[in-house]
């Protein structure tokens, strides 16, 4: 069971790319038969599409119509302006709410702590390695709706952040702070091996990759440690030269 806020609960994905055989509606770690356990494919290799599924409290505005509304508002209890019964700009509420989805799903820091201690953003709680989201989340969750950016501004800021990311980080494993040292070494090693295999598939033909995959999967990574595997990956250019000369 996952704990998610109400806004996050209404963002769903079409998971067919990672569960090509489908899944059971209730026992969703199982195939449609409800008994066979299925392992999902990686989203990074089989991209999924995300959807918003609920319009129960949406609003429609005509051109020129004031887009301030007065009702019970959204169900994200953290939105500051919804704590008072006064007209609010629902677009700005959206921006805050989306920021809160990112915050809660990737940082799991309460908005309350955000209000009093913005430095919390420097300490991601759920996953490590997502520090690049901090500025965006802080930008989107400004307490003052008049100072909060529009959705377009949020997108533009994200585009700038994304452009500054090193593409090689895309396959960096999301580490969790509560991993033990042993778990971390093994998981890092497996992730590094996967990353290496993926890189190599773009360099070699399938036969060579199959051989390399066999080599990687045969290595006892828990003995080698992640630094050794990392060195193996970094040694890739020389590997390419060696194979090419055969």
């Amino acid at each position: 069971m996952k704990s998610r806020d109400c806004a996050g609960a209404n963002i769903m994905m079409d998971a067919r790319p990672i569960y090509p055989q489908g899944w059971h509606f209730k026992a969703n770690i199982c195939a449609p038969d409800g008994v066979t356990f299925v392992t999902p494919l990686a989203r990074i290799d089989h991209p999924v599409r995300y959807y918003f599924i609920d319009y129960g409290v949406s609003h429609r505005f005509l051109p020129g119509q004031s887009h301030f509304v007065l009702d019970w508002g959204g169900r994200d209890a953290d939105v500051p302006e919804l704590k008072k019964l006064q007209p609010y700009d629902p677009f700005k509420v959206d921006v805050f709410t989306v920021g809160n989805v990112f915050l809660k799903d990737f940082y799991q820091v309460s908005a309350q702590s955000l209000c009093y201690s913005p430095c919390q953003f420097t300490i991601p709680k759920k996953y490590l390695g997502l520090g690049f989201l901090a500025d965006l989340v802080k930008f989107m969750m400004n307490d003052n709706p008049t100072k909060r950016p529009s959705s377009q501004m949020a997108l533009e800021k994200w585009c700038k952040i994304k452009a500054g990311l090193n593409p090689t980080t895309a396959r960096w494993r999301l580490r969790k702070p509560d991993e033990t040292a042993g778990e971390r070494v093994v998981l890092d090693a497996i992730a590094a091996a996967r990353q290496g295999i993926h890189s190599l598939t773009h360099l070699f033909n399938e036969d060579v990759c199959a051989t390399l995959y066999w080599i990687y999967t045969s290595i006892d990574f828990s003995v080698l440690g992640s630094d050794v595997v990392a060195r193996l990956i970094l040694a890739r250019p020389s590997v390419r030269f060696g194979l090419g000369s055969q």
Partner: protein
Amino acid sequence: MDAKRVKDGAAVCLKAVYRTPKEAQIAKYFSSPELLQEPTNHSVPILDVFQDPSTPDFEYLVMPLLRPFDDPDFTVVGEVVDFVTQILEVRVLNYHSAKVGTANRVWHLCILIILPMGM
């Protein structure tokens, strides 16, 4: 509840909504052929809408069977980057609609002001 589409066996999901015009109307608007082609349209496609005479206050939206966005967990950084991009790009659609829509078709949607399922 889950269901299966008879014509092709596709797994679908049924959602009962009050027959207020708003929700089904908005959902169907975003499922129009024109907007289904829009890559930044991340509204769940509504495959069908039907009524049940025994529950006249409700109508039923037929949607594809989906999973929560974080189940299974994200595993690498690139997956998070893709998620954030998809969630934020939907704003472009709203912005676009606001700019080019005709007077009777412009919908500004606060699509994330939403109730949890079951409420």
